[in-house]
């Protein structure tokens, strides 16, 4: 027995030296920002090695939350393409849980680029919360310093605050061609281009949405706009 | 060397500890026994007399507390000793999803046979035990008697010098018992030593040339074939009188 113990001890030491002190570049359980009483669920996801799936499931919940009615649209009435007031897109209203939910997702997976882009886009362009959007993008830049899109988004928000829709459209144009851009931001870019008279560009972006998105609302809206803008396609 | 198996003052004490209390049970108490090559030697005794303990000491499944156990002059439990022994335990278990041929081949390979040797030998052995027609069937479809035949097949596939059989005919029907007896006789005629334990005194009488009677872990008596054949009541009376002495 003694020789097996010595052999095992030597192998354990070698194993520890090889990889025993490795730490992944992800926040530990104590650094996860919980949402509601998600602590137990987060621990389960991390304990089973399903961190990214946990982030995905919470992202689905965020989509479902944002897709539900939080407050009715204002009495001025808006259509999906024309918001009731201010803002650049539909989906406005009070969604008080949106930011905490987003922070929870990005602490589970700090490299969930789509969640950062989507969340910042909703906060900036739909919920009229540009400061929150900028804070989200700052966090994204800290996690993914090599991703240049976050800086561009911050510039777009800055131009929006300065009420310069042409410059917002220019910035968004440079981003929407990148893979992984949320369809909501493509929608914003198309709408802006239409609003400032760049109808051919708007048609191109709507075509891209219709071809690449699986979200029915966005695809239907894109096709509707394509029919309206068909003569500007050439 | 004419000695196949030898127990020299072999002692086995089982220790069980539970919540700090240690219980000791004597399985074998100073067994001195010698089995000659070519013999068919029987081991009789009541339940708990030490028969299975004695067999397991031969096979290295148990380690003696004191004394020595040897196989063909080599310490029992070593690889050399194990190569010389084939073992059929009581109620052997086989993986049910394999065929008889696959199972016997597996045990043959474990006994040190090469792949080619196993391929040649397995059909011969299955023919010998009467399973040639069923070689391709899964063992889950086998009857008890057929499984016991597979047990004998795996015990002899590597052509060991000594075959240890623990209750080889337990639970078998009379026809199967007869077939097994014929099989053991033929194996012995090929020069193999058989060392078997059984509760069936009539089978032991028909097969064995000598019998040891164990009682409470000790060797109570060794009986020669001539002795029980001439005694009134045969081996059964000798056995009963032996185990009942000082009871």
């Amino acid at each position: 027995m003694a020789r097996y113990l010595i052999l095992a001890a030597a192998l354990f030491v070698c194993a520890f030296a090889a990889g025993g002190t490795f730490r992944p570049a992800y926040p530990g359980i104590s650094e996860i920002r919980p949402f509601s009483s998600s602590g137990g669920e987060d621990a389960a996801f991390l304990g089973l090695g399903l961190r990214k799936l946990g982030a995905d499931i919470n992202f689905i919940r965020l989509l479902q939350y944002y897709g539900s009615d939080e407050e009715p649209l204002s009495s001025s009435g808006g259509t999906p393409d024309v918001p009731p007031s201010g803002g650049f897109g539909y989906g406005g209203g009070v969604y008080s849980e949106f930011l905490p939910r987003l922070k929870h997702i990005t602490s589970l997976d700090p490299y969930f680029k789509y969640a950062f882009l989507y969340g910042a886009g909703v906060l900036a362009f739909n919920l009229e919360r540009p400061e929150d959007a900028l804070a989200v993008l700052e966090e994204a830049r800290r996690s993914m310093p090599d991703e240049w899109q976050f800086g561009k988004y911050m510039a777009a928000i800055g131009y929006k605050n300065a009420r310069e829709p042409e410059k917002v459209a220019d910035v968004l144009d440079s981003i929407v061609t990148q893979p992984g851009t949320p369809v909501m931001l493509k929608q914003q870019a198309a709408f802006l281009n239409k609003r400032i008279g760049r109808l051919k560009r708007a048609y191109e972006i709507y075509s891209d949405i219709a071809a690449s998105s699986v979200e029915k609302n966005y695809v239907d809206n894109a096709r509707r706009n394509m029919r309206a803008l068909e003569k500007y396609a050439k | 060397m004419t000695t196949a198996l030898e127990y020299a003052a072999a002692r086995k004490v089982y220790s069980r500890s539970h919540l700090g209390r240690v219980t000791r049970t004597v399985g074998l108490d100073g067994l001195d026994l010698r089995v000659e090559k070519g013999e068919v030697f029987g081991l009789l005794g009541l339940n708990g007399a030490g028969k299975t303990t004695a067999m397991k000491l031969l096979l290295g499944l148990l380690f003696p507390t004191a004394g020595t156990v040897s196989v063909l002059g080599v310490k029992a439990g070593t690889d050399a000793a194990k190569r010389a022994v084939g073992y059929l335990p009581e109620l052997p278990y086989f993986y049910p999803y394999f065929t008889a041929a696959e199972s016997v081949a597996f045990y043959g390979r474990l006994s040190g046979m090469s792949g080619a040797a196993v391929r040649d030998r397995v059909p011969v052995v299955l023919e010998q035990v009467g399973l040639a027609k069923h070689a391709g069937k899964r063992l889950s479809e086998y009857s008890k008697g057929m499984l016991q035949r597979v047990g004998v097949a795996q015990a002899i596939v590597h052509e060991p010098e000594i075959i240890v059989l623990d209750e080889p005919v337990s639970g078998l029907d009379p026809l199967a018992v007869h077939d097994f007896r014929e099989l053991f006789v033929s194996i012995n005629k090929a020069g193999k030593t058989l060392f078997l334990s059984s509760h069936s005194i009539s089978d032991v009488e028909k097969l064995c040339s000598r019998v040891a009677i164990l009682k409470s872990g000790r060797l109570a008596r060794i009986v020669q074939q001539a002795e029980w054949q001439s005694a009134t009541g045969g081996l059964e009376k000798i056995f009963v009188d032996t185990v009942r002495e000082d009871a």
Partner: protein
Amino acid sequence: MNGAFSACYVIALQSFREQWKNRFFQLVAAFAVIALYFGLILREMAGDQQARVYAHFGLGLCELVGVASAIYLCSTAVIRDMETKNIYLLLSRPVPRWSYVAGKFLGLTASVMSAIACMGLAHAAFMLLRHYAVPSYFPAALVASCLKAAVIGALAMFVSLFSTSILSSVVMSFIFWTLGHFLSEARFIAHKLGGVSGAVLAPLLYAVPNISLFGVTDALDSSIPSFAGWPVLFGYCVLYCGACLALSTGLFSRKEF
């Protein structure tokens, strides 16, 4: 020595074949494939992130099924042979005890790894059928899951040799597996505890496998390089499994049957 390695190989091959002939094992693999198919429902709720969600779901399921199988099979392997007394037929032959332990482990681990590979292939096929791009880290993730299953399987086999029942062995192995994901936090807490508790707990935690090392999906799907490298992963797996098997052999060598 040749004979010992040969016996190890024969037992490994038999264990591998036994698992694939076992209906329970086939059912588990089939269940996983069916669950992968029904996972396509999950993607419907994921907006434009369908491919990502389905990829993570599938990889997670393959790993969970693989690790659970490894824990169960390795926890029950030796115990089952002892209870059925099949161990008599094995150890009455010139099979060194370490050959038996290593052979059993290698055969069972190979069967789990092949099951993970089958589930992974099915998952990739479902993804391609839906015209999703299979992520570039997909094969690496499956390999890492196999290594993870091997590490936890070796630990489960060791635990089974001193625990009092299959259930306690499975539960203990599962606890070690989840603890392996929180190792750095657990070690920090043990050091902070101090006193007798800390002195006892801290060395034990150094023996818990660092499961986060095998989080290849996390490592390769992040912009900060946190992948330890394949030599480290394979080296750690071999060394850790070797240590567990050495302990298992030590415990097993003095067992009587």
